[in-house]
């Protein structure tokens, strides 16, 4: 599936998008922590730090590592705090 980074995760990752293979959100995060070490600070095994959040296809925000993902999904990783 396709991963998009926004805000601080984008800055840390140094890229805005990436293709990753994973069956669940937990797997995806584990892969990201390995592939992009600067993101590791925000990922504890298979979960995002509470200050960050994942979103599926621009619709649902997701946090359960068991959330299933399919090939054409787009997962967005962003700061949970939307304060302005």
């Amino acid at each position, binding site marked *: 599936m396709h991963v*998009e980074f*926004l*805000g*601080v995760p*984008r*800055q840390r990752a140094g890229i805005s998008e990436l293709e990753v293979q994973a069956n669940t959100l937990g797997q995806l995060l584990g892969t990201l922590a390995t592939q992009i070490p600067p993101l590791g*600070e*925000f990922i504890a095994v298979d979960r995002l*730090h*509470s*200050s*960050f*959040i994942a*979103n599926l296809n*621009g*619709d*649902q*925000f*997701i*946090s359960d590592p068991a959330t299933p993902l399919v090939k054409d999904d787009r997962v*967005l990783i*962003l*700061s*949970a*705090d*939307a*304060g*302005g």
Partner: protein
Amino acid sequence: MPFGYHGRYLRIDVSTGTSEYVPLSEAILRQYLGGSGLGVKLLLDEGAAVMDPLAPEAPLVFAFSPLVGSPLTTSAKFAVVSKSPLTGRINDSLASSGFAIAGKACGCDAIVLVGRAAELSALVIDEAGVRMESAAEYRGATCRETETGLKARLGANYRVASIGPAGEHLVRYATISHDGRHAGRGGSGAVLGAKNVKAIALRGTHRAEWANPGELTTISKSLSKRSFGPATAKYRELGTATNLLTFNRFGALPTRNFQSGTFEEAASLSPEQLSTTRSRTRESCVSCTIGCEHIYSLGSGGVRVEYESLFALGSLCGVSDADAVLRASQRCDELGLDTISTGGTIAFAMECVERGWLDEPWLVFGSGDALLRAIDLIGSRQGIGNLLAEGSRRAADAIGHHSIDFAPQVKGLEIPGYEPRALQTMALGFAVGARGADHNRSGAYEVDFSDKVDRRHVTLDAVRHAIDTEDKAALMDSMIICKFLRGVFEDFHAEAAEMLRSVTGWDVNADELRETAKRIISAKRQFNLLAGWTPAEDTLPERFLSTPLPNDPDASLSRERLDSLVAEYHRQRGW
């Protein structure tokens, strides 16, 4: 006198320059804490709800807090509280930073101003007492010029809050500025302008004692340490401006007067893009370990870039020229104008021009020149600026054609940069906000950016979450502590109680603070009821209830749904 307080406020009649200290009981301080809470309580006692906010007798409160002056990070803040000349409802605006410390060092927990000075004046409070000095030489001066001038006259160790030309001209959304920061929303600058007070300069030597200094130091160190972690990374590393691309991605970036939730040229205003051609420095309020202020170079100076200014003067007006948007933001700072209401009112006027209802052909979406010209006209109340200085609601009333349906306001206060159809818990927060559409008194957007709700199809379950964010904001605004710190707390109420215990010595706990928050929200409602509030005000403009967002049919909010959310909110509040 209770620890953490002086147990009195300073009431000044600027007509005569006379002043008196009025005692504040420990019970009142414990019930309302300080900041917004104490400010509202003092306004109720003064009978301000039924007064014309621009009349001489209308009080303007500068309220400090028990935490200000302590080593707790982000605590150097003050609240400016009055009846709003823009909404006719309660208005509490917060600003930072040295002015708050100096205010409390003047030996009081709040300063209440009434009256009207005979000439444009500076109010000076220092060890010698209270006096009025002429500020005639600063007529028409920017906030920064006034501050610099007064410090040169009085001494560099005075802390100065001032109004710009917009406040002098009673623009209904004029700000009060201190050190480049603004008590921005709702027009407190016009209230000070109506008192013929250009500036307030403070210097003091009083110290409030802490009940348990050792414990306070330990708590402060822990909080500072956590403030360097991931929870505040967004504010430190990119600033609030980073919201722009995120909101655009979610179709929640208000564009061209809320006609769209996406701005095709958003990238040109993003911090990532801005920093490719401009140098960037970071600043912070006094006593803050986060430092969320990102200053971008502009000409020979710099401008503080925040999401709300970028959205209001950028996408909302369809302007993608970053230079024009930064200049517009800088100009608002100089004139002392709230950027959200300025951008909202100009964007509304641009749509009216587009529809042929306003004969100002130059005022078109996308024009940076038009934006800058409109801002100057508003600040001086010249030409069309005289109408726009009244805000979008009054402008709509004058223009007619049912333009009120798309005037981007609630209770007269222009809507911040959160598209209500795409963020529907926030839509509720805007509708019921005591001071109007506001993202600082309700953090309901936090709920939309979580797995607690489906942001485009919220149900009644969202209401309790919205109430929680509103209560928490009331507490933070009264203690006072910066909201950008909120992510570091595991259990905010328990930690807040710990802070207050160490400062005041009270046996306060989390449950008491939950009650305190509700009391403060109720006091605001009581003020509004006295000022003439009716349930019909708790709504959104027709546009949001009858037109889905283009390109996102799911982002649709009916009147029925909003009404049911509002009714449930009132029910859960017990109103």
